């Protein structure tokens, strides 16, 4: 998953507030102008000034004297309406049916069932609550006006602000209660569906394992590759549509090292060379999960049990680099890496040298900041997550993975006078297109180098105290160790994995995102319903929703330069595209110069800029949709959440003003 970068809330707030005020002011001016036009049409140009001034003058006491008590009374009415019209009940019933029977059709042997389950509950919840919010808000006020029940309300000392706010508050409360219930049920549903265990196929002991070929590192049963240090293998039963492979691996340690204490050791052997070999039972992961192995006893009589699944419910906190720089074979820096053709727009490639020149300075360097110990929970190692792609210039042994190398360096503030720590290169096999987690030991073997490049010392150094040091900066260098092969990586493809957030908190944040969307939808529906009938409110709100969910795509489609001209790869704006489709002209040639071309160009200029403006006026639901984070197991950043909440409040404020002025200037009994 590609995680976009976003600013800190404290950095975003002030410019965001200024932008909001600018939009509000522009909206106010436009509103006044439009109001004047309508009033002039009805009352004449001179009287219109008075009418507009009166509306504005009355707005101040209306807002100032808005009574919270009356707002709450109207909100209570809205809640009762939502409950007694059974909209909330039917929505919940549909959700319950989905949850009860949905699991029948999910799973299906996929490696990542958690993504399917989480996506299902989030998508289902989102669609249902947004639709419910739309139905409630679109029909309530128009029905009141059509049935004239609003007469008995507006003839009480009730202000337009109170009517608008009361409706919004009431439906928001009903929607929030339902969302909380759906969230709890969803969480329980996902947890119940994914929680499972396995047993070993055959005996629950060493007898179930068969030896592997330790020379070719292949299974003697299936012929497939096994881990480099695997000695034996077995399989588990099929549960939740999958099974795991088990391996007994050899973990060799020096005799001087403290004895390894782990529940998965089945045998301890003292080798002839004096080293201690710990034979450990490993459950290989399927997708993102595995099982903890517990071995009771030792040797052939040991009892092996597998625990419940671990790894499904993750909320990774990625610490991304602040800079990614590529270097070519000659060591020249650039931002794009070696060109291997149009493989990826996002990734740059690092080459592994050639047969003629095995030595290469080609590498990718990631600069990390804020690297300090308290951000990483495990004291023994720091996980680095990598998602790499491989470009093979020759096929070679397709089953043999390309080898990459990681190296760590300190970044001294004064490189001319301060020494530098450089680690040894840690080689590992790449696993293309999947997320690899590499445990970087806290103590790394390396050397200290003087500013002139001379060796000062060699030894094992601490990753935080020595490499990151006081400035908490760390340079991670990725290189390709296979000649004539290339490794591709992007800025978000490598991150240090900080302490995982609590999954329940991350799940809650996902639902807060849905809640923000619901609040905007309700505010939009209520505001539109102050001057439109129910069908038009539905249509308009759905249109806004579609624009909101596709904001990124629309902005890219209507991307303009500083002069307002379209930036795209050919084909022009909407009108030009239409002309090309009709006249069957390809995008490589310009349209025939003439009056038509000029008109099309001018109109397209207008349309494209309007499209751009529209994407900023419509709420960006994509910005509030955190489902991807939950589905792929990443923590939603608190800054992003705060920004989303602030944007939601801004929209509600603006829509409340719109609703107030429309209701205030409307003749209820007309």
């Amino acid at each position: 998953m590609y995680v976009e970068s976003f600013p800190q809330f404290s950095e975003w707030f002030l410019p965001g507030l200024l932008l909001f005020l600018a939009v509000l002011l522009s909206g106010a001016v436009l509103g006044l102008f439009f109001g004047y036009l309508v009033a002039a049409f009805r009352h004449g140009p001179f009287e219109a000034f008075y009418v507009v001034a009166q509306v504005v003058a009355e707005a101040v006491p209306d807002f100032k004297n808005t009574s919270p008590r009356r707002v709450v009374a109207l909100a209570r009415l809205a809640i009762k309406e939502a409950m007694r019209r059974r909209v909330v009940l039917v929505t919940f019933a549909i959700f319950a049916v989905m949850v009860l029977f949905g699991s029948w059709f999910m799973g299906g042997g996929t490696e990542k069932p958690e993504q399917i389950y989480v996506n299902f509950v989030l998508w289902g919840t989102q669609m249902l609550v947004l639709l419910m919010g739309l139905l409630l808000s679109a029909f309530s006020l128009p029905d009141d006006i059509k049935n004239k029940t609003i007469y008995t309300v507006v003839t009480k000392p009730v202000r337009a602000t109170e009517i608008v706010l009361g409706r919004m508050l009431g439906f928001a409360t009903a929607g929030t209660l339902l969302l909380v219930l759906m969230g709890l049920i969803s969480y329980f549903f996902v947890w119940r569906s994914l929680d499972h265990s396995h047993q070993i196929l055959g005996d629950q002991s060493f007898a179930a394992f068969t030896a592997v070929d330790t020379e070719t590192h292949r299974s003697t049963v299936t012929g497939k590759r096994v881990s480099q240090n695997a000695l034996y293998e077995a399989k588990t039963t099929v549960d939740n549509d999958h099974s795991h492979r088990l391996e007994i691996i050899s973990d060799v340690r020096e005799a001087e090292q403290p004895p390894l204490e782990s529940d998965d050791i089945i045998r301890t052997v003292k080798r002839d060379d004096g080293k201690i070999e710990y034979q450990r039972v490993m459950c290989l992961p399927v997708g993102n999960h595995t099982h903890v192995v517990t071995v009771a006893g030792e040797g052939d009589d040991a009892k092996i049990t597998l625990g419940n699944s671990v790894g499904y419910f993750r909320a990774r906190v990625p610490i991304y680099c602040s800079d990614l720089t590529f270097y070519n074979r000659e060591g020249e820096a650039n931002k794009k890496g070696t060109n291997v053709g149009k493989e990826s727009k996002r990734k740059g490639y690092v080459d592994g040298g050639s047969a003629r020149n095995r030595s290469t300075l080609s590498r990718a360097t990631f600069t990390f900041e804020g690297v300090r110990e308290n951000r990483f929970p495990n004291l023994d190692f720091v996980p680095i997550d990598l998602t790499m792609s491989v470009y093979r210039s020759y096929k070679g042994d397709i089953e043999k993975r390309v080898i990459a190398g990681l190296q760590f360096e300190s970044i001294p503030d004064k490189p001319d006078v301060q020494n530098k720590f450089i680690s040894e290169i840690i080689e590992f096999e790449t696993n293309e297109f999947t997320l690899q987690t590499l445990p970087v030991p806290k103590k790394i073997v390396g050397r200290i180098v003087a500013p002139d490049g001379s060796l000062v010392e060699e030894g094992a150094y601490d990753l935080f105290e020595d490499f990151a040091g006081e400035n908490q900066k760390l340079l991670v260098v990725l290189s390709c160790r296979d000649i004539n092969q290339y490794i591709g990586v992007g800025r978000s493809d490598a991150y240090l994995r900080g302490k995982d957030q609590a999954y329940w908190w991350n799940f809650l944040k996902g639902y807060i995102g849905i809640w923000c969307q619901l609040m905007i939808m309700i505010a939009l529906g209520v505001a539109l319903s102050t001057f439109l009938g129910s069908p038009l409110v539905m249509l308009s709100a759905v249109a806004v929703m579609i624009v909101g969910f596709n904001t990124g795509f629309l902005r890219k489609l209507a991307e303009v330069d500083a002069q307002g001209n379209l930036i795209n790869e050919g084909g022009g704006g909407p009108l030009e595209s239409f002309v090309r489709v009709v006249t069957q002209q390809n995008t490589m040639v310009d349209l025939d110069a003439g009056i038509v071309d000029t008109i099309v160009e001018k109109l397209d200029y207008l349309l494209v800029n309007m499209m751009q403006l529209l994407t900023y006026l419509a709420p960006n639901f994509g910005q509030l949709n955190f489902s991807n984070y939950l589905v792929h197991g990443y923590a939603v950043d608190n800054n992003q959440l705060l920004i989303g909440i602030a944007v939601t409040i801004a929209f509600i404020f603006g829509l409340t003003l719109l609703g107030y002025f429309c209701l205030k200037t409307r003749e209820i009994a007309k």
Partner: protein
Amino acid sequence: MVTETSSSSQATQNPGRLEQSNPDYDPNIVIEAQNLTKVYRDFWGRQKVRALNALDLEVRKGEIFGLLGPNGSGKSTTIKLLLGLLFPTGGRAIVLGENATDVAKNERIGYLPEESYLYKFLNAEETLDFYGRLFDIPAKVRKERVQELIQLVGLEKAKRRQLREYSKGMTRRIGLAQALINDPELILLDEPTSGLDPLGTRDMKDMILKLRDQGKTVVMCSHLLADVEDVCDRIAILFQGDLKEMGRVDSLLKVSGETQIKAENLPESAHEEIRQLIAKHGGQNIVVDNPRTTLEDLFLNIVRESEERPGMRSSSSTGGDADSGTAAADQSN
């Protein structure tokens, strides 16, 4: 033709709180319409209907004022303009010293719409509680008032049922209750007896009279003339948006050219003598006859007696035995 014009003061330019800024404001004038005009236009601004044409009228404190007229005469439009549900095309409406569009005046008024437009998914208690919350009434007082009003309108047994299950009469009664929830000074009733049976109509009229006796001002609009005649002190008659007549009911209905004499226990033999006496003094078109009661009174008496003596046929009839025919009418030219 207008026979009574309003004595309103000069309208000021400021449409705000006239009681503060207008030195001529008279607190005894509860409603004042000055040249009030309403023209309905279509979407393009073209004139469709001139619903009200330069209406001038006053409603005084403590009276029952009736707005009469056939369908489409502008009665409901006038009420809606006074309530701020519509904006005037010209002129202005002042209610309790405030501009009609000022929300603050609604603290002191109650409104019963034509069809008691209420929320069908609420029950009676909830309905009155909801409307009560819209006023500045302490919770304890509000709760007491809700129960009092439910008893007043006779809906004690049905107070927990949703309004969608109510009959027309019950709906009107709860509608009246919500109009009185804030103990208003001014009550506007739009067709209050419309759709009610004679019993319900009588109850409604009694209620209106009671409100007047409590010092409240009532404005009602109706096309049921008999009901208006029974309760109203002053009336205005509208036709096609124009005010045609306005004044006290008794003075408007008085037929000045005729004399009516009523007496009880007068034998038949006295009729001829009376006729001759009147003729001697030059009276013409003499009718000496038993007066007629109203059908409403007859109906109500029968219902009352039936409740008191179920199963027995009513014997009360002020005009005598209905089976034997009516009393003879004797006319002379």
